[in-house]
């Protein structure tokens, strides 16, 4: 199919900033080709630790509380494997990234989807979690800013979840890979809430904010017990994250912020443009506060989200993802990524308008 515009891709359209790429090349030239420590290069763990003190005023010991992983994907997998006993239940607000439930199942756990509501801008509340709580509930797995909805949780929203976790003695896995891509206010780190550091397994990485998806580099932060257990799995299955990617990640944390901020500013403009576009098309959407997705409601078209996505690609050559790919509660929505150029977003909106007028 020719001239397809994809709003389906979940990765930045930017290339990793040159200074970051160059530091990796320089490392290779100097012969950095070995394994690193299982937990990751000390330099990188130190930078991560400093970053969290600077940004969120929460301190992690680089020797015992930080594990560098092969992307957040690995971190998520081994976090779940480290904490779950067979039959343990994990509360997972939905719609959500598709791996959450799959990895829980792989780890021998039982994923318990908890639908988040559009009326609440896809935030999750303790009242919504409560009915799904059982004696087997071990953890809550949240990902804000959210893929696919673009929802964010503000400090008071997170505090309620923190209180709920505290009352019911639950572990919180917080996937904050989109944290730097927060456009309304600042990103609140779950582990920085009072008393939450020990209870939280914080997952983050470089893929989205620094346009480093292909480098496969992420990290997990948590108390020494859980990070120790995760390190055991990591050392037997992965040994260590690639040294080349770790060198690049060090540079990203040391000097990458200005490039990252430029990309964030660009995403923000696209976000407003696409939000405005869908509003004008009469497709309801709340204004996404983070990540690079918008999750408009398509029920006015009279189609299901799968039909909408399929008809749109066939007739207008615009690709997007049906909301049901992210759980049942995504029904009636589609996920559009705005990690693509302004011209393409404008063109895609025109095509969607054409599509809608033909429908009626």
């Amino acid at each position, binding site marked *: 199919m020719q001239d397809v515009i994809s709003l389906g*891709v*979940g*990765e930045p*359209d930017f*290339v990793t900033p040159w200074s970051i790429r160059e530091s990796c090349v320089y490392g290779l030239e100097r012969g950095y080709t070995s394994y690193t420590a299982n937990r990751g290069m000390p330099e990188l763990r130190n930078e991560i630790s400093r970053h969290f003190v600077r940004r969120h005023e929460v301190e992690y010991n680089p020797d015992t509380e930080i594990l560098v992983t092969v992307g957040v994907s690995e971190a998520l997998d081994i976090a779940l494997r480290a904490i779950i006993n067979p039959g343990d239940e994990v509360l997972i607000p939905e719609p959500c*990234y*598709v*791996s959450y439930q799959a990895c829980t199942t792989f780890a021998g756990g039982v994923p318990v989807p908890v639908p988040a509501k559009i009326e609440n801008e896809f935030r999750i509340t303790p009242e919504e979690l409560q009915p799904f709580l059982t004696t087997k509930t071990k953890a809550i797995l949240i990902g804000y800013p959210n893929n696919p909805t673009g929802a964010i949780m503000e400090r008071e929203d997170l505090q309620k979840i923190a209180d709920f976790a505290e009352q019911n003695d639950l572990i919180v896995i917080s996937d904050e890979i989109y944290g730097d891509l927060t456009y309304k206010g600042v990103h609140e780190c779950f582990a920085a809430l009072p008393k939450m550091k020990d209870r939280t397994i914080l997952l983050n990485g470089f893929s989205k904010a620094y346009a480093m998806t292909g480098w496969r580099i992420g990290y997990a932060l948590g108390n020494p017990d859980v990070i120790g257990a995760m390190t055991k799995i990591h050392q037997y299955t992965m040994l260590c994250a690639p040294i080349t990617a770790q060198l690049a990640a060090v540079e990203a944390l040391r000097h990458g912020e200005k490039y990252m901020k430029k990309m964030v*500013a660009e995403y923000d*403009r*696209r976000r*407003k*443009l696409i*939000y*405005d*576009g869908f509003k004008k098309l009469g497709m309801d959407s709340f204004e996404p506060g983070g990540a690079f997705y918008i999750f408009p409601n398509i029920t006015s078209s009279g189609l299901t989200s799968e039909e909408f996505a399929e008809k749109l690609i066939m007739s207008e050559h615009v690709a997007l993802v049906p909301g049901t*790919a992210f759980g049942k509660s995504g029904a009636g929505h589609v996920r559009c990524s705005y990690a693509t150029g*302004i*011209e393409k977003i*404008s063109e895609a909106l025109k095509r969607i308008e054409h599509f809608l007028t033909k429908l009626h």
Partner: protein
Amino acid sequence: MKEILEILEKNARISIGEIAAMLQKSEYEIENEIRRLEKEKIILSYNTLINRELLGEDIVTAIIEINLTPQREVGFDAIAEKIYRFDEVRTVYLMSGNFDLLVIIEGKSLKEISHFVATRLATIEGVTQTRSHFMLKAYKKDGITIENEEEDRRQVISP
């Protein structure tokens, strides 16, 4: 204001409506703001960056370093003005270092440019020395890479 400039600097042809949506302002506000920026000469012009090599036009670009004897009262400005008034002169900068003015000239041939430098620039009163460098190839201009535009290498991946 800074954001409008950032957007326009990247694409001067973008519509007012798109800028308004991106900044969550009304079109009226954006239009007024742009008019003000133009009036205050913060926006000087809307240019098009052309890759003349692909056009097949033979254009020679030369960078000329010029040394000057500054003049009483006006310093370098009066001579700079004499130089930038020529249509052939595209760019003039006052520099620190080994020379005073950096002048960029475009012409049809090496001969035309050297003739221009020898007869029109070097002869201006106060110009003590000129050194011409001819440009062989442009790799990047005003933040835009001329060739090898990085293509979209993203592949299909799930999830």
